[in-house]
């Protein structure tokens, strides 16, 4: 009886998440495009729904809601469905839509989509070889094989994103890094842009007029037939067409210049707006936050380095450690079990909410930046794939933040994976990503004022 009630609760929550994913798709991602393939929308919402259900199960685990056997059942069910979607459904549809966009392969779409899927499976399988992720007692077609590979990809993504985010966040928040842009700079650039456009226009007018005159002359000379007629007509218009190709080259160069000027003007306008924003109250608040985040970022990089160098993996989670510290050093006595449950619930809840929100915002930004009306379907599916893998591996990594009694369910469901490996891998990739972001931002920052001065 309780199993039925639990299942109903789970099902309703899944429907809710599905609806939220659907709304997000319609209102945010696809607000400029017309949805023609509802399959894409359904797949996206399903991935989102099942990923969120996993998080919900963790929360239920901590709170002790629902009965333990039904929780376990739903965990397993959820995991199977998510793996099915991430490994079979989404890649197949990605291949299908990519193939649909290529004109040559239009007719044999299904066949080529299957071929693409098999190639994906091959590389996906090969991915597991260089990593020591499995203990040898697993068979070849077990669920652990799939999860381990999904986990590797997801953890890499997470580490890349957090590394870049940790560095980028203080860089964007702090106004120390803002370049000095005055109105006259912008006006000067705009004037140059318009001048370039005028030059392009006048050259194109020359080309058009010359072509028109050649065409009119060509009509008169059409009566010349035969071999000699052809030679004559070629030589007489030779200088005309040579001139034309020269002017055309100049026009191409000018057009390239106009594009660069346009992009630089956009850049300067954006910087000017940021400077104005930083003078407001909100801007000052973010600036202040930026200082905190930069300290946090430095600390995280430091910790990652220590973890790698000293090859240590944290055994206790932050909640229990915090409670231990308060009890032992500060001498405050309180009911450990009671508080650890609530605090870990809050902590895990915050982690979940911020990671979902952060991921959705990042996905939206990416989507706006790179999608066009042709590739929007493919990109949404790729984003759904990334989202699914990201969420699965956050469950994996979150195991570290939970006290021992709650870790057991994750260990049980996901099988005997080498969890320590994942944490080490996360640290390595995080370090690499953070350092290269610092380098990248430094170079971009250095280069910009030089470009600006040279104008």
């Amino acid at each position, binding site marked *: 009886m309780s199993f039925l009630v639990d299942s109903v609760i789970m099902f309703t929550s899944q429907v809710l998440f599905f609806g939220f994913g659907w709304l997000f798709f319609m209102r945010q991602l696809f*607000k*400029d*495009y*017309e949805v023609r393939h509802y399959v894409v929308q359904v797949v996206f919402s399903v991935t989102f729904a099942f990923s969120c259900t996993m998080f919900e199960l963790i929360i239920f685990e901590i709170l002790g809601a629902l009965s333990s056997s039904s929780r376990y059942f739903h965990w397993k069910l959820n995991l199977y469905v998510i793996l099915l979607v991430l490994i079979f459904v989404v890649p197949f549809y990605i291949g299908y839509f990519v193939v649909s966009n290529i*004109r040559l392969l239009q007719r044999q779409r299904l066949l080529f989509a299957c071929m693409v899927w098999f190639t994906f499976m091959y590389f996906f399988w090969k991915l597991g070889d260089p990593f020591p992720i499995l203990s040898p007692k697993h068979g070849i077609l077990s669920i652990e094989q799939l999860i381990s590979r999904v986990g590797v990809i997801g953890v890499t993504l997470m580490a890349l994103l957090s590394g870049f985010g940790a560095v980028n966040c203080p860089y964007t928040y702090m106004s120390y890094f803002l370049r000095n842009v005055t109105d006259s700079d912008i006006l000067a650039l*705009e004037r140059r*842009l*318009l001048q370039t*456009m005028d030059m*392009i*226009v*006048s050259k*194109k*007018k*020359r*080309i*058009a*007029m010359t072509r*028109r005159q050649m065409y009119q002359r060509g009509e008169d000379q059409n009566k010349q037939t035969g071999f000699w007629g052809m030679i004559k007509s070629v030589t007489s218009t030779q200088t005309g067409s040579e001139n034309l190709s020269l002017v055309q080259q100049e026009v191409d160069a000018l*057009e390239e210049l*106009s*594009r660069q*000027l*346009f*992009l630089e*003007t*956009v*850049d300067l*306008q*954006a910087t*000017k*707006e940021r400077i104005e924003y930083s003078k407001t109250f909100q801007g000052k608040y973010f600036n202040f936050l930026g200082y905190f985040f930069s300290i946090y970022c430095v600390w995280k990089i430091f910790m990652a380095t220590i973890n790698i160098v000293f090859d240590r993996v944290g055994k206790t989670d932050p909640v229990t450690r915090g409670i231990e510290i308060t009890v032992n050093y500060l001498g405050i006595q309180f009911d450990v079990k009671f508080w650890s449950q609530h605090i870990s619930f809050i902590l895990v809840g915050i982690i979940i909410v911020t990671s979902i929100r952060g991921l959705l915002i990042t996905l939206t930004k990416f989507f*706006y*930046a790179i999608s*066009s*009306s*042709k590739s929007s379907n493919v990109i949404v599916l790729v984003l759904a794939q990334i989202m699914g893998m990201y969420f699965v591996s956050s469950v994996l990594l979150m195991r570290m933040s939970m006290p021992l009694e709650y870790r057991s369910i994750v260990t049980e469901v996901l099988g005997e994976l080498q969890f320590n490996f994942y944490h080490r891998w996360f640290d390595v990739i995080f370090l690499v990503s953070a350092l290269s972001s610092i380098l990248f931002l430094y170079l971009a920052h250095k280069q910009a004022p030089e470009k600006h001065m040279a104008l």
Partner: protein
Amino acid sequence: MASLDRVKVLVLGDSGVGKSSLVHLLCQNQVLGNPSWTVGCSVDVRVQDYKEGTPEEKTFYIELWDVGGSVGNASSVKSTRAVFYNSVNGIILVHDLTNKKSSQNLYRWSLEALNKDSSPTGVIISNGDYDREQFAENPVPLLLIGTKFDQIPENKRSEVLTRTAFLSEDFNAEEINLVTCFPLSLQMTGFTDRKRFNFKSLHYD
């Protein structure tokens, strides 16, 4: 050559509707083989004989300024695009017939262009809401072009045509629907002599 009068026409619309292909076809009389995203603004020129064959025949340079929609809609991009909107003689609004959102976005595009170019009579545009009367008094003529007509399945065509008829009424504009097929070649539906019809509506007198 330089003594010919110039006519500046803006070509506006969402990213990917076919503005660059349209401009290329009108100016070079050939199909654009490899369309790519327009960054910034690309201009092309067409020499046009106005009222050909009549005593008032005059030759004009028509500059088609194809303002790219692909860099995004941040306010920094909008204020940069505004430099292109000076002293405009006509506006061509292009939308994709297979994509409803591109037609709805045309309101935004036209407001953006006309705001910059507000006439001395003081057309006041409040918080971006579209108002039909503004378009009625508008001195700048508008032409509405719908592309990719042949990619709409047969049964939906009349519905799409009624929708675009409403749209062109709202803008007080002339309307033309274009056909595209692989490879991208544009043909007008129902108009054989395209040169004369096309640009008559752009000269207002």
